[in-house]
């Protein structure tokens, strides 16, 4: 028969064990795998962290660079968020049996990732690109007098361009599409699609739109008296008339909501375009082309209003 003090000691030990064991089960681990430090990636991570602090305060966020990620570490987390294309590619090759959310990658890149096996946990993504509908809606909203749309399709953007063209035609626009396989074909393609002044909708394809081609594309369009709609704020600064894009913060916040919901036990949603977006305009270019535009903020509000109205 144990003595009274002895019983007390055992109780204490049991209590201690219970105390230490409970939080271990309660803490949710979120691993973030980034393609790079700083810039848009850091902004995204920081927005994600910010969002989780309010929506899932218990979640423990660890940030890994894609180069030094280890399977063991990632496997212990409840969900992995990859930021950027490179991180997504790295993770998709690892045997990590946790749900994965890819952010900050174009839809084209996501579609090129290896398919996960059937038994794997769910995978989802928030694309970098804007949904084609939104782009066409903005085009109609901002430039209702421009009936012609010019599109250039690169090796990575055939489908996207085809989809855009489809939607545009549905909305009553005349669409000119030219395929560009390498940068030498860029000028003739532009000449072709901009034979008459049209709105050139830039698509995120490295052959068509990269930092070395942007200027020549913008110049050519300008010479053809054609406005360009870009896909980033920088594009607008470089000379595009309009820009439709989502900021890293918007994407980070959206990712935080998805992570929080997942941690609460919900399933991952299907891959989707970002919900938050911004519209930027370049008033100088607008003046040069003699186009009157509403402000970017107004356009964004109107665009959101229309999207909200639509189910």
């Amino acid at each position, binding site marked *: 028969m144990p003595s009274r003090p002895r019983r007390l000691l055992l109780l204490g030990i049991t209590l201690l064990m219970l105390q230490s064991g409970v939080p271990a089960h309660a803490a949710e681990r979120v691993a973030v795998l980034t393609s790079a430090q700083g810039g*848009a990636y850091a902004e995204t991570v920081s927005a994600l962290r910010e969002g989780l602090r309010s929506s899932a305060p218990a979640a423990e966020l660890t940030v890994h660079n894609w180069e030094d990620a280890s399977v063991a570490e990632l496997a212990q987390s409840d969900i992995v968020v990859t930021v950027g294309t490179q991180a997504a590619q790295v993770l998709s090759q690892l045997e990590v049996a946790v749900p994965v959310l890819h952010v900050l990658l174009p839809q084209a890149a996501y579609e090129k990732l290896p398919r996960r096996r059937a038994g794997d946990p769910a995978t989802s993504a928030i694309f970098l690109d804007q949904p084609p509908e939104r782009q066409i809606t903005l085009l109609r909203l901002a430039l209702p007098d421009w009936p012609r749309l010019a599109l250039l399709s690169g090796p990575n953007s055939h489908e996207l361009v085809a989809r855009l063209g489809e939607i545009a035609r549905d909305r009553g626009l005349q669409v000119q599409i030219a395929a560009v396989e390498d940068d030498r074909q*860029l000028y003739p393609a532009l000449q072709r699609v901009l034979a008459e002044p049209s709105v050139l909708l830039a698509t995120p394809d490295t052959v068509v739109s990269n930092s*070395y081609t*942007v*200027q020549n594309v913008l110049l050519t369009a300008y010479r053809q008296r054609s406005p360009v709609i870009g896909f980033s704020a920088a594009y607008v600064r470089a000379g595009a008339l309009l820009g439709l*894009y989502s900021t890293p913060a918007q994407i980070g916040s959206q990712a935080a909501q998805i992570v929080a919901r997942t941690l609460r036990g919900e399933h991952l949603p299907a891959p989707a375009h970002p919900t938050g977006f911004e519209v930027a305009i370049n008033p100088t270019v607008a003046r040069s082309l003699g186009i009157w535009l509403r402000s970017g903020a107004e356009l964004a509000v109107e665009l959101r209003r229309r999207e909200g109205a639509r189910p």
Partner: protein
Amino acid sequence: MIANWGVRARVMLAAVLPMLVLAVVMTVSYTGLRLADLDEALNARGRAFARQLAAASEYAVFSGDRDALQQLATTLLDEEDVLGVSVIDRDGATLARSGRLDGRLPSPESAAPQPAAFSERGTLRIIEPIRPSRLALDDTFAVISPGVAPAERPVALGRVVVELSLERLQRRRSELLWTGVASVLFVLLGSVLLASYMSRGVSNAIRTVANTALRLGQGRLRERVPITGGGSLRRLAEGINEMAARLADARDDMALRIADATAELRMRKDEAERANLAKSRFLAAASHDLRQPMHALGLFVSELAQQRLSPQSRQIVERIATSAEAMENLLDSLLDISRLDAGVLNPSMRAFDPRKVIDRITAGQRAAAEHRGLRLHVRPAPYWVRSDPVLFERILINLVSNAIRYTPAGTVMIACRRRGDRLRLEVRDSGVGIVDEAQDIIFQEFIQLENAERARDKGLGLGLAIVRRLADLLGHRLELRSAPGRGSVFAIELPIAEPDTEAAQADEARALGDLRDLRVALVDGDALAREGMEGLLTSWGCKVRSAETAEALLDLLASGPWAPELLITDLRLRGPINGLELIARARAAAPGRNLPAFLVSGDTGAAALERAQAAGVALLHKPVRPARLRALMHRLITPA
């Protein structure tokens, strides 16, 4: 080489050399820098053109706008130095070309689209790739596409080739080089002028000192260096001046002393001349005063010797004659010396055969030699000589008699030998010889070696003095070779002459002759001398009329038909008429024939002889030797 340089050259070198080195170094380095700068500038300009063109043609190349490119290329051609421009696309096709590209360089189409610049043969070619300008799309789309991410360095759209002419650069380079050379020369000239100007300050001062020193050296001791400048130059000038002052003092002092010494010397010389004059006067007077009685003595002894005498008396007479002759010889010698000293002897040089003279002397001296037990040898030579035969005979007699006198035993030899164009006549003896130190003094008057007692039979010590004086007068070289115990050789050298046979025959003819019945007029103030002379002449068979004075003789001549064939008169006569005048009057009294006449005189002074010579009348000094008297009479009465 520098060791021989003057002050000025050194100063110039010191001033010019550093300047020159500096000028060369500066010019070379600055020209080099400037050339490098020019080179660099041209390169930079070329690159700037190329970059500008590349940037400007980017869109035109992108859009394939050849017109725009051509315009750009043509515009660039307006730039200075640009020779040619070419724009080439990425496939190597030329899109635009303007100007002319250097065909010697590799084809620009084949060049790699890398920035390059190289120059060759006056052309600088710059290749600049045309790169699309990059616009930073600072968002995620920059890296959105895996696998096809844009390269850091995009593919060049093409390249531009710009060629620039190096001609202007080279022209500029040669301009610079010439400017450099010119500036070096200019600096050199400037520094030479400056150094010359500066060095004048130094070298002029030194030159002044040097010139003054030179003048001081030439004896102008009153010269002084003007004291200018300071330091060493000043010390030098002061030193020179002090030296000059001391030299001048020393010279003045010396001049004073020399003047004193000269004055003293002159005084001494005057004294000596006076003493010499006194001696000559004394000799002349002494010989004159001695001559009168000697003359008479000689005549009387001659006359006495012609008398019949007992052998004892004859011996006495001979001894008297010998003594008288010795005394006469002494007087002759004294007379000779005084005549030679007076310088009134005029040698009459002519060619003659010395053998006759030698024969005569040996004949005369043989007896004396034999008397002393000596052998007298003659080794004659068949040459004639040119000299005064009478004076030559005097020389030879003196030498031979001297040799005989000083040779105790052995041989005396007279040897003739030809030596070139001269006849060397030696009188050798086997006597005691003469030590070196004595060989000069024996030619002085009254010097007799080893005759401290002055024995009269050893002569008066005038013989060699006369020989020396005669040899000097005739211009014959006189030589003495002797050593103690090895005899002596006196040699005299005479010029050899062509034989003159006519003169020789005349001599012969005159030597013959007879005085018998010769009418002689004799005038002498001194009765003793007159009687002696008259006795001698009478003993020779002459018919003598004598007178004490000139007047007496003239009376005698005027009173009767007796006409003399010869007139002998003393120079100094009692009464107003002297001997010379008497001769003139006597000749005037008997015109038509030139009355032969001569003078006798006890006056050995130069004046008497000069007067006789001036009148062309022979003069015999008293005491007159019978032989000489006879010879002279012969000569005068024998018609030429």
